[in-house]
């Protein structure tokens, strides 16, 4: 009984993950095409490391640029959607374990979710 339920939950979550990957790669692809259309002839330099501009690494600064059609900000939005995909998976599992009244694993998956959110939002 438990096995069957687990498998259904996993199938559903598998589909959610696939949708997340499709959506984020689609957004990233749009950004890449726009970038190459506008800056295709510029000369890139990735040899020397200087961290990308603050506008491209802060969520609240990046989103307005993305919606105004800034190609690099659109790519970063796609990347953020992709990072959010496994986080959504863990969040779904917290819910699924709660429905099964499996308190121990609500705690386990809840802890993983807290660690993930901490690292994504606060850790340096």
């Amino acid at each position, binding site marked *: 009984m438990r*096995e069957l339920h*687990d*498998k259904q939950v*996993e*199938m559903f*979550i*598998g589909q959610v*993950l*696939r949708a*997340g*990957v499709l959506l*984020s*790669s689609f957004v*990233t*692809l749009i*950004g*890449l095409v726009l*970038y*190459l259309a506008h*800056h*295709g*002839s*510029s*000369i*890139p330099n*990735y*040899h020397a*490391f200087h*961290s*990308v*501009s*603050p506008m*491209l*690494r*802060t969520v609240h600064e990046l989103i307005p640029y993305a919606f105004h059609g800034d190609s*690099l*900000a659109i790519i*970063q939005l*796609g*990347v953020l959607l*992709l*990072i959010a*995909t*496994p*986080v959504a*998976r*863990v969040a779904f599992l917290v819910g699924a374990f709660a429905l099964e009244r*499996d308190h*121990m*694993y609500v705690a*386990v998956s809840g*802890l*993983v979710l807290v*660690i*993930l959110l901490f*690292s*994504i*939002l606060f*850790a*340096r």
Partner: protein
Amino acid sequence: MNALTFSLYILGGSLLAGLLGSLTGLGGGVVLVPMLALLFKVDIHYAIGASLISVIATSSGSAAAYVREGFSNIRIGMFLEIATTLGAIGGAWLATRTPTRGIAIVFGLVLLYSVYLSFQRHDDEIVPQNKWSDRLKMNGAFPAYDGQEQKYSVKHISGGFGAMAGAGILSGLLGIGSGAVKVLAMDHIMRIPFKVSTTTSNFMIGVTAAASAGIYFRRGYISPALSAPVMIGVLLGSLFGAKLLVKSKVKPLRMIFAVVIFFLAVEMIYNGWVGNV
């Protein structure tokens, strides 16, 4: 080289890396980072950032297919993810404090060890019962080849947990999925059947990589114009690889790829040693 040609080269290279990674079972990152660093002379921090993103994409993209086979064990995976995510945060922290040369050498060594592990096969030794496995509800069953259900239990949970923290550190430091170390922890230490280990490990890789990817993102290590062709290339390559795996005999191919990865590992160690990265 202008941005358009560069992006096309990166796209093609990443496609190949994704293909190689999926056929050897080692993941796209292990080929990608040396390729970007040695061939395209990309700074290793950018290379690792782009690789982490591609690792999340391939792991999440293939999860649905793995679930259908019915081997993965979500409780074991979730429990061990506590260790891998904490390890990944530690690894991302270490990445800022380790010189580039050191990262290259550690990368090469992990690569060598992964190739060695991928050729190690031993027969599953089913654990009949374990007190802690019962308490943590880790027992499971999978469809065996004769149509019967094979029940299994898990042992050495604390040892496996520790090894998983190590896998997380390597993932955060090197930008790889460290699938080989995860399988080592589950298959060799916890005695989880091989099929269950590999599919559960694939499930865990995306969550582990997300833990350090957020940190890399906010540090500005994820360069959009580089990550975009890498992510799309690796994803397409690994999807193609998964199709090939079903259709063709890959044993001779695996041997060739293992040799390629062996040389990549030696190159990484050499270039790290002489300071050429």
